[in-house]
C-alpha cells in the first residue's frame, strides 16, 4: 500500500544524535526479521506439523497447547501453516521487489542519462503507469495472464515499479553531476564501467532503506491479491490465501483470520522500523 516518495520521506527524517544507544524498537524488528528468514529457510525448526496434512476430525480447534494458533477447517495446524507460509510470502515479496527495482533501474537510467527526449518519454510512461492505482494495474495483469505465484510476483512488481523508477531517476540525476563521475569521465573510463561501478552504487545507496520497507509493502500487496483469490491458490499456506479461506468462519473461528494477518502486520512493522533505523544510521554516517 505504500509508495513512499523519496522527497517526502528523506528530508523529513531527523538525524539522531544519540545513535549509539541500543533502542528496543529496532532490536525487536531485526530479531523478528531474522526469525522470519530462518523460518523461511528451515521451517521444520519451528513447525512440527505438516502444513498440508488434513485431519478433518481436528477441525476448528481454538488456540491451545496442542495447536498454538488453532486449527483450520481441514484440521491443519495454523501455526505450521503460518511458518511455512513465511517462505512463500518472503519469496514473493523479495522477488517482486527485485523485479520492481530491476524495471526501475532500467527506466531510471534511461530517464536520467538518456537526454531530454528520452527523459520526457520515460516520464510520460511513468505518468501512464501512475494513472492506475496499483491494485487496478495488478488486477488487469492477472486478468490477462491468469492467477498463480508467477503472475502474482510480476503484478506486484509492476505495481511498485513506477514509484521506485521515479526515485531512481531522481537519484541518477543528482549523482551524475558529482565530482567523482566527472573525474571518471575525464579519465576516459568506459561508460558502462562508470555506470555499473560508480553511478549505480552511489545512486542506490539511499534507496536501500526504501527497498527494505518496500519488501514489507510488496508482501502486503501480494497478500491482498491472494486474498482476492488471484494469487497463490489453495491449499498453499500463503498468508493472504489463508485469510481469504478463513474469512467465512470469522464469527465461529476468529483464529483462522487473525494469525496470518498478525504475521503480515508484524512483518510490515519490522521492515518499516528496521528500514527507518537503517536510514538513520546511514544519515548519521553520511553527515
Amino acid at each position: 500500500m505504500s509508495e513512499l516518495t523519496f522527497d517526502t520521506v528523506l528530508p523529513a527524517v531527523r538525524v539522531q544524535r544519540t545513535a549509539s544507544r541500543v533502542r528496543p524498537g529496532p532490536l525487536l524488528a531485526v530479531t523478528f526479521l531474522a526469525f522470519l528468514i530462518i523460518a523461511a529457510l528451515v521451517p521444520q525448526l519451528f513447525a512440527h506439523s505438516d502444513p498440508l496434512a488434513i485431519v478433518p476430525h481436528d477441525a476448528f480447534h481454538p488456540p491451545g497447547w496442542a495447536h498454538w494458533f488453532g486449527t483450520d477447517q481441514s484440521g491443519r495446524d495454523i501455526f505450521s501453516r503460518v511458518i511455512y507460509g513465511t517462505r512463500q510470502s518472503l519469496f514473493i515479496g523479495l522477488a517482486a521487489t527485485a523485479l520492481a527495482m530491476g524495471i526501475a533501474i532500467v527506466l531510471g537510467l534511461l530517464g536520467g542519462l538518456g537526454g531530454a527526449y528520452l527523459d520526457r518519454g520515460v516520464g510520460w510512461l511513468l505518468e501512464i503507469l501512475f494513472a492506475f492505482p496499483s491494485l487496478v494495474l495488478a488486477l488487469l495483469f492477472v486478468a490477462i495472464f491468469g492467477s498463480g505465484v508467477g503472475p502474482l510476483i510480476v503484478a506486484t512488481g509492476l505495481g511498485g515499479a513506477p514509484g521506485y523508477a521515479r526515485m531512481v531517476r531522481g537519484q541518477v540525476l543528482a549523482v551524475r553531476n558529482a565530482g567523482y563521475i566527472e573525474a571518471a569521465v575525464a579519465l576516459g573510463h568506459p561508460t558502462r564501467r562508470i555506470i555499473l561501478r560508480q553511478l549505480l552504487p552511489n545512486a542506490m545507496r539511499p534507496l536501500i532503506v526504501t527497498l527494505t520497507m518496500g519488501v514489507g509493502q510488496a508482501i502486503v500487496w501480494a497478500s491482498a491479491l491472494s486474498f482476492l483469490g488471484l494469487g497463490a491458490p489453495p491449499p498453499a499456506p500463503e498468508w493472504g490465501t489463508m485469510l481469504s479461506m478463513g474469512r467465512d468462519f470469522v464469527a465461529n473461528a476468529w483464529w483462522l483470520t487473525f494469525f496470518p494477518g498478525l504475521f503480515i502486520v508484524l512483518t510490515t512493522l519490522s521492515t518499516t522500523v528496521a528500514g527507518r533505523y537503517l536510514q538513520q544510521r546511514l544519515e548519521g554516517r553520511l553527515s
Partner: protein
Amino acid sequence: MLELSPHLRSQGRRSRSLLKSTPLIGLAALCSLLIGCGQDASTVARSDKPVSGGTLVYATDREPTCLDPHVSGDMPQVFIGQQYLDSLVSMDEQGQIGPWLAKSWEVSADGLVYTFHLRNDVHFTDGTPFNAAAVKANLDHMANPKTQSSTAGGYIRQYRSTEVLDDYTAVVHLATPYAAFLEVLAQGFLGIESPTALLRSRDQNCESPVGSGPFKIVKWDRQSQVELVRNPDYNWAPPTARHQGPAWLERIVWKFIQEPSVRFASLQAGEVDVIEALPPESHEAARRNPDLTMLVALRPGNPTNGTLNITRAPFDNVNVREAFVRSADVEGALKSVYFNEFPRAGGALSSATRFYSPDFEHAQDYDQGRAAQLLDESGWTGRDAEGYRTRDGKRLQVHVVIGNRTPPSELTLWEQVQATTRKAGFELLIEQMSDVLATQRQADWDYDIRVGYWNTNTADVLRIVFGSEFVQPAGVGGYHQNTAGFASPQFDAINQQALATQDPEQRRALYYKTQQIASQQYLQLTTYPQSSRLGIYKTTQGVRLEPSLAVTYLYDAWVNK
C-alpha cells in the same frame, strides 16, 4: 414454526461447541454492561393470524444476470421468478401435478398432444389478459434460439408448436412423447410472462419482466437489490398455496449479500428478515438463537458431484472410477467443512426427487481397501518416488476443473478429497480458472472431473446428465450437459420408455434401472444434495419452500414489525 419437508433427513449433531468466539463474547458482555447496546431487547409478538401490509427484506447470495428466467436459467433467477410469475401447472409435496393457470388438461394416447384448458380470470400486471395466445408466446419464446434459454429451452427440446384452439384452449404439439413435460411446466423456469412484455428486446425484458404473480417487479438496483410490490388483483393462487387472493406482504426488498458471514450477521441483527443459503457454519448459531427459525429442504435433481470423464484415461476403466470414488473420504469432509449439516448423497438422484431409490446410497462408501484392490487389478501397480501409483511409467493423474467463483468450502472439500485419494495413489490436480476457460476446457473434453449439479423436479434429469444425445454440444459454444461422455443405447432406451408412459409405477421401475446403471458405472462422485436453507427472523412467518423445486415462496408470508 419449523416446517420440515418430508424429504429432510435428521442430521447427527456435533456435540462439541463451535462457538469459540470468546473475545467477541467478552467484548459484547462488556458492552452490554456499559451501554446496553447490541440487540433490541423487545420481543416481537408472534401472531398466528396473517397481517396484511409491511415490507419483507430478503437476502440471497447471488445476483442474477437477468430477471427473466427464460433467458439462460439459473437458481438466482428462478428464486426471484417464483414471486412474480405463475406456472401453467403446480406440483405438490407428493409429486402430483395439480392445476394452476391451466384448470385441466388432456394428454393424447401417443403422448404427443397436450390440450390445456386455461383459467379465464387471469391477467398480467401490465393489463394484458392471459389466454392461449399468451401460452403460445411463452413456449415459443423459450424455444427460440435467440432467447438463449439453456434451462427452459433445454427442457422443452421436444416442443414443436402450440395451436390456439380458442381463447382459453391451447393445444401443444411435441415431437416425441415426454412424460416429464408436466413436471417441468410446474417449475418457475417455465413461468408465464406477459406476451406484450415479451415483444420488447431481450435486455429490456431482463430488466423489468412482467408476470401475473402475487408480486410485481418495480426496480432493479444493480449490485444491491430488487424491489417488488404486491399485485392487488391477484386471485389465482395454486392449490398448493395456503390462501387465496392478494399476498399479505405489501413490499419485498430482495437484497444481494455475497459474503456468508455478513449475510448471517445481518439476519441476527434483524437487518434482514429472511436469508437464503444459510451458511452451514452458522446452523448451530441459528438453532441456539431464539429469534431465528430455520427452514431447510433438499432440492430434487442430480446432487452436487464431480462427474468423471469416461472418454479418456484413467477414467475410461470402470474399476479405476470405482477405486477413485471409494478412496475419497467425502463423509470426513462433510463433517468438518460443512459441520455435518449436509447428508452424504450416495446415488445419482437426490433423495428429494420423485422416484428416488435408497438402494444406491452405499455404493460410494469410503473403502480404501477396496480401492487398492481395484487399482491393483487394473494394472496400476507401480509406485513412484512420491507414492503415486504408476502404470507403464505414467502417473495416475486426475485433473479437476473448477470455476473461480466456487465458494471456499467447496474448494476445501475437494482439497480433502485430494488428500484422501492420495493415500490410494491418485494425484489429484485441482485447477481453478475463470468460467470462460472452464467452459473451453469442457468443450475440449480436456478434464477428468468436472464439478457441478443439476436442480430439477424430475428423475428425467439422468437422461440430460447421462444421455447420449447430450454428449454432442447443443450449440457451437461446445457446452455439453453430459460431462461424463456416457453413451449407452440401453440407458437411452430405458429413459425413452420412461418418457413414453404416464403410469407412475412403470416410471418408478424404469427410473430404478437408470439409477442402478449410473451407480454401477460410477459415473460421478456425488458429494451432497443441493438444498434450500432459509434463516427466518422472528418478525416473519409463513415463509415456505414451494414443493416442486424447494424455491422460496413468499406469497403466504407476512411480517409483524
